[in-house]
């Protein structure tokens, strides 16, 4: 039903020299602990990801295949140039996702991943980098955890925003006060909807806007026959909040093309595909893929 991803990064092995360079780069980015030259947790904002070239936004499902590995993969993504990290909290029934991310959710759940692990992962990432970080989660796990407790924990572990696919504009008010109280941005999604709806959503946007260039699910094939430039112009007419475009599958050149009118690109399922294919060894492939993508943008 779904075509395979093309261009999902180099499969060539990486030599030692490159590895060393990366470690150096990693030290530079991490600053070896929060004290040395890193921002304080509260200084980190989603906006940091934008404004210096097109933002490259990477997505992984947390705990796929393990929390430790997720932390490593996120580190690789940051080293390779990701400006913002999106971590998916696994859910049994991710209705907005295509097969690639669905399967990642199942892998993480069968590894016994729970909400506390996700906060542990976020805290681990935050300890080492200044990269802005958002959770992608379905509403039910948040509802069960408790809106106040969830938002407080996000703030505590350095999560800057939350994107909830099954919480549209009409339903966001029940979570919004808690999110605002804890400086967590609720990220909104824009689809090729009527102009009035795009304006309505964009006008209240926080953090960044996740623009889906076509309908369907993540990683889907949905042909893009919408005028992305027009959607983004509409957004710009009502807000300064940056707009990033969801990129499903294709070459880095196509991603760059898509990024042209926007402020950044979200790699929806490409990194997850690499993890599905290479499991625990996916790190270097992720690095190469992100590097290539970032260079193209």
């Amino acid at each position, binding site marked *: 039903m779904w075509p395979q991803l093309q261009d999902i990064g180099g499969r060539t092995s990486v030599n030692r020299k490159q590895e060393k360079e990366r470690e150096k780069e990693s030290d530079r980015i991490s600053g070896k602990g929060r004290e040395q030259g890193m921002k304080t947790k509260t200084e980190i904002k989603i906006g940091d990801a934008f404004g210096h070239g097109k933002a490259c936004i990477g997505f992984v499902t947390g705990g796929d295949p393990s929390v430790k590995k997720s932390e490593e993969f996120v580190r690789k993504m940051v080293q390779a140039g990701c400006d913002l990290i999106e971590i998916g909290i696994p859910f*049994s029934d991710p*209705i*907005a996702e295509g097969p690639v991310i*669905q399967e990642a959710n199942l892998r993480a759940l069968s590894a016994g991943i729970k909400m506390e692990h996700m906060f542990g992962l976020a805290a681990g990432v935050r300890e080492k980098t200044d990269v802005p970080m958002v959770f992608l989660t379905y509403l*039910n796990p948040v*509802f069960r*955890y408790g809106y106040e407790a969830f938002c407080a924990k996000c703030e505590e572990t350095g999560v800057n925003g939350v994107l909830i*696919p099954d919480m549209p504009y009409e339903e966001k008010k029940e979570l919004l006060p808690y999110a605002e109280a804890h400086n967590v941005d609720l990220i909104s999604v824009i689809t090729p*909807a009527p102009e009035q709806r795009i304006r309505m959503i964009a006008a209240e946007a926080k953090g960044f806007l996740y623009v889906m260039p076509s309908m369907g699910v993540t990683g889907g094939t*949905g042909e893009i026959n919408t005028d992305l430039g027009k959607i983004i112009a509409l957004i710009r007419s009502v807000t300064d909040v940056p707009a990033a475009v969801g990129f499903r599958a294709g070459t880095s050149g196509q991603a760059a093309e898509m990024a042209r009118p926007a402020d950044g690109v979200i790699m929806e399922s490409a990194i997850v595909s690499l993890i599905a294919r290479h499991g625990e060894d996916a790190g270097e492939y992720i690095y190469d893929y992100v590097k290539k993508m970032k260079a193209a943008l």
Partner: protein
Amino acid sequence: MSEGRYGGHGGQYVPETLMNELIRLEESYEFYKKNPEFHRELEDLLNQYAGRPSLLYYAEKMTENLGGAKIYIKREDLNHTGSHKINNVLGQVLLAKKMGKKRVIAETGAGQHGVATATAAALLGLECEIFMGKEDTERQKLNVYRMELLGAKVHPVTTGTMTLKDAVNETMREWAMGVEDTLYVLGSVMGPHPFPMMVRDFQSVISREAREQILEKEGKLPAAVVACVGGGSNSMGMFYHFIEDKDVRLIGCEAAGKGLHTGQHAAAIAKGMPGIFHGMKSYFCQDECGQIAPVYSISAGLDYPGIGPEHAYLHDTGRAQYVPVTDGEAVGAFEYLARTEGIICAIESAHAVAYACKIAPAMAREDSIIICLSGRGDKDVAAIARYRGADIGE
């Protein structure tokens, strides 16, 4: 949005990709709901095609045998396609046609809603695609072929647990493609607004008829109405016009499967917790982290982890009572009804029969109970035989 809420339940918790279509559907339904021509056409389909009104049958032998309240059976099993599902699909597919849609999509568990949707689509000249868990397509091969005979395309769903909830997930994903010529025909009083309201409206024909029929036969209202509950469409239809009649007990029978203590059940009220899933806030079988739980029932039609939001509200306010009925009790009632009244009912409906048998003896002889017999049982004969250890070569 205050509409589409039942107390704190209901709502429209769906991805943004579905909102356009949902809003369009809401507007269209609000329009046609008030349109006399639409209602005339629907009534014509229900009466001339589906065989309504359905009988309210006095089960005399059962009444004598139980020795208490008079038992009446609302015969939804006698509708065309063999269940109450046709009431809803004729409404929704007619609406789809009025909206100018060319294609309908639907989920199905055991296949009853799929068959009904394929039937209505064939009749009204729309394309039809059905999403059905792969497990269910294997267990219900006959219904798959039936849908294909009716011209529908059946997609086996291979994600998740490969059963009803996954079929709903996949139909929602398909609808999210945003193809403007397509309408999702949802099978129960669940999902995002306006589905719970719309499906309830279409199914409420059951209680509209039953209320008139019982008044005509008994000169007074029943003491209780009893119906099985999965998502809850036949029960909501059976309850609706009795909600204001405060002395009529409304009883919904949930699937307790192998027993509530075993964890193998589908009892969202008895064992579920408040949650948000498939577009609605309601009660769901789930774990402490909010992951939706795999559920079990001998009845594929009740094998769903949630319950419609209006039921959740009727439960919260105490207006309706929800009781668990096990596989064993349902199978016993299935056999009892066949022997006593010569009616082979759906195993879903047998859950309601079982509970009525439990309460009738202690009730006064001048009182009556109406059981909603939501479907016929041909589809279940092989499973009942298996349950009893008989091999009938199916």
